[in-house]
């Protein structure tokens, strides 16, 4: 399965409708594909190309720029350990080395059971809580090596249940009821000042 399934196709179409230009939906749709399959499959990219009206090559071009998109299957849990400056000075690299030993893979690798992919990442914006990591983009703060082992054990045994599988980001989607939508403004069609501005400022200078 790599093209969008029926449910996700509906989601994809609702996302595309929110943008004045369909190609803007490309990154959200790549995330949706990754949510469905755990990675971004070639067929998914071909499907996205059809949906937004660009070539598959353009989708690949965008996809390969962004490091969150995995073009091959990865572990159920992607463990991202920050080693950037604030974490470095408080043991981020040591935590990473411990993780490499404890999981038996180098950064970038996936464990044989397919459960964990380990990554050495750049700053994840939790600098006051160093050293920190994310599992499938869920934070864990101020970790000791014991905390790390406990986390891995909890995920392995299923004791930790608040981390969805890789690919799932926000579990809540934006929903806009049709009667509440202000209306998507196509760049080439909306050539007038918006009504509230025109009403208050006849010249429409808006400054």
């Amino acid at each position, binding site marked *: 399965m790599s093209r969008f399934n029926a449910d996700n196709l509906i989601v994809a179409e609702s996302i595309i409708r*929110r*943008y*004045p*230009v369909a*190609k*803007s*939906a*490309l*990154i959200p749709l790549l*995330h949706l594909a990754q949510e469905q399959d755990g990675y971004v499959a070639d067929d998914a990219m071909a499907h996205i190309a059809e949906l*937004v009206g*660009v070539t598959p090559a353009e989708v690949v*071009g*965008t996809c390969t*720029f*962004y*490091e*969150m998109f995995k073009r091959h299957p990865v572990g159920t849990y992607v463990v991202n350990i920050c080693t*950037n*400056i*604030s974490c*470095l000075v*408080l043991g981020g690299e040591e935590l990473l080395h411990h993780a490499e030993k404890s999981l038996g893979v180098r950064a970038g690798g996936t464990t044989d059971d397919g459960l964990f992919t380990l990554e050495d990442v*750049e*700053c*994840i*914006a*939790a*600098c*006051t*809580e*160093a050293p920190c990591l*994310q599992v499938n*983009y*869920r934070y864990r703060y101020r970790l000791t090596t014991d905390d790390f082992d406990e986390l891995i054990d909890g995920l392995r045994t299923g004791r930790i249940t608040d981390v969805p599988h890789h690919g799932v*980001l*926000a*579990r809540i989607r*934006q*929903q*806009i*009821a049709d009667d*509440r939508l*202000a*209306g*998507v*403004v196509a*760049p080439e069609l*909306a050539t*007038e*000042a*918006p009504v*509230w*501005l025109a009403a*208050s*400022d006849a010249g*429409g*200078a*808006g*400054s």
Partner: protein
Amino acid sequence: MTPNTHHTANTPGWVDVDGPHIVTSRFGFDDSFTLARFEATGGYAGLRAALDRTPADVHTEVREASLLGRGGAGFPAGVKWGFCPPAVWPRYLVVNGDESEPGTYKDRLLMQRDPHQLIEGSLIACYALGLSQCFLYVRGEMALAQERIATALNEAYAAGYVGKNILGTDFSVDIILHWGAGAYIVGEETALIESLEGNRGMPRLKPPFFPAAIGLYGKPTIVNNVETLANLPWILLNGATEYKKFGSDTSPGTRLFAVSGHVARPGVYEIEHGVTTFRELIYGERFCQGIRDGHELKMFIPGGASAPWFFPEQLDLPLEAKPVGAAGSMLGSGAIVVMDDTTDAVRACLRVVRFFARESCGKCTPCREGTTWEETVLRRILDGKGRSADIDMLLDIGDNISPGPYPVAANEAEGQTAVPFPPRQTTICPLGPSSVAPITSAIRRFRSEFEAKIVLPETIPVAAAVHPATSELAAAAHGEGGHR
């Protein structure tokens, strides 16, 4: 206001201190992110106040508040707003929530803890400038912030705060949650726009691509940072005059500073802008309470990884853009990274440089090639494989990315004066030049630490390094005996 002396379970990182709470007023509540809490604590009153006035009036209020952009460049938001060409429509708002500068940790808190405040600020900007659609670009890695904003937007749409005919007026605007996928460079505003158009996030050349003139889909676009917009509800509710009672004349209001590294109490602090000094923030009992036990301050980064480093002599500077710039660095994104005497300057320098090498988008040659070489040379020095020429080579690579004297703090012991910020650049955006900051800072101050790691002889004998065939060709080209 629930008292909150240190980290709460819900807001790790934020430390509540006495003083004005302009953007963190709800952080102490466990349910600060809900519409119910927001409405119960004055939420959307700033929007109502704005809708009672003309759009031009709202713009004037923001301009008079002299609200400086909180994304890093520190440009006045009201002035930036004025750069939209008149009578070119549509205009868009892009909210920059792609917070990724190492050390920076404030926009994520604002998005997670008070998403409605950001939505309200965005609405005020749209109303004032006639922006027809707003895209709220959240960093891809911030799953919880995305969930909180999605929930808040769903609530706000249903309650009539966002969408068609907001609060029964003729003001209508959609706010669309958009999210990235892992690329630091997308925090640069033109790269952000490229990314929002579905492309690789590579910066555009300015001029002509100033977003206010030629932005999203080639239309006028305002790109504002999350913290900048989060200030607007307060300003509209209380007025520019009240706002300017906080902070300094040139930097009014408050600002969020994230202090991380070797301090006793790291945290995100809302403090009056331009008034407090680095010393008070790092050593003050109310704030970070000094360097961790038994250690001394060695250096600190005053404004995110892109900023040249400061040292103990700079501690008495105020947290204000102008004096910090004159002293050779920048306040940037409000990220202060404190390093004590246990820190290896070369290792810290390599780690920051590695970041820029990894995050270079590859569009400009000096940055793409230069950052890679900076990392390579630094790594071999750290690995004991460096040559003494490598130190000057690092400076030379930096000079190709950012020509001329690079901004650096004064070093009185060595009789060196400060070089003021900003650096010059041979690249489209400042990413490449930023990679030079840790190199010039560390080498100028701690050259002996680099030298101590260099154990190999100064040069490799040239004859041994040149392939015989190459030597023969060279000899032929230079005539008999002209070349060794």
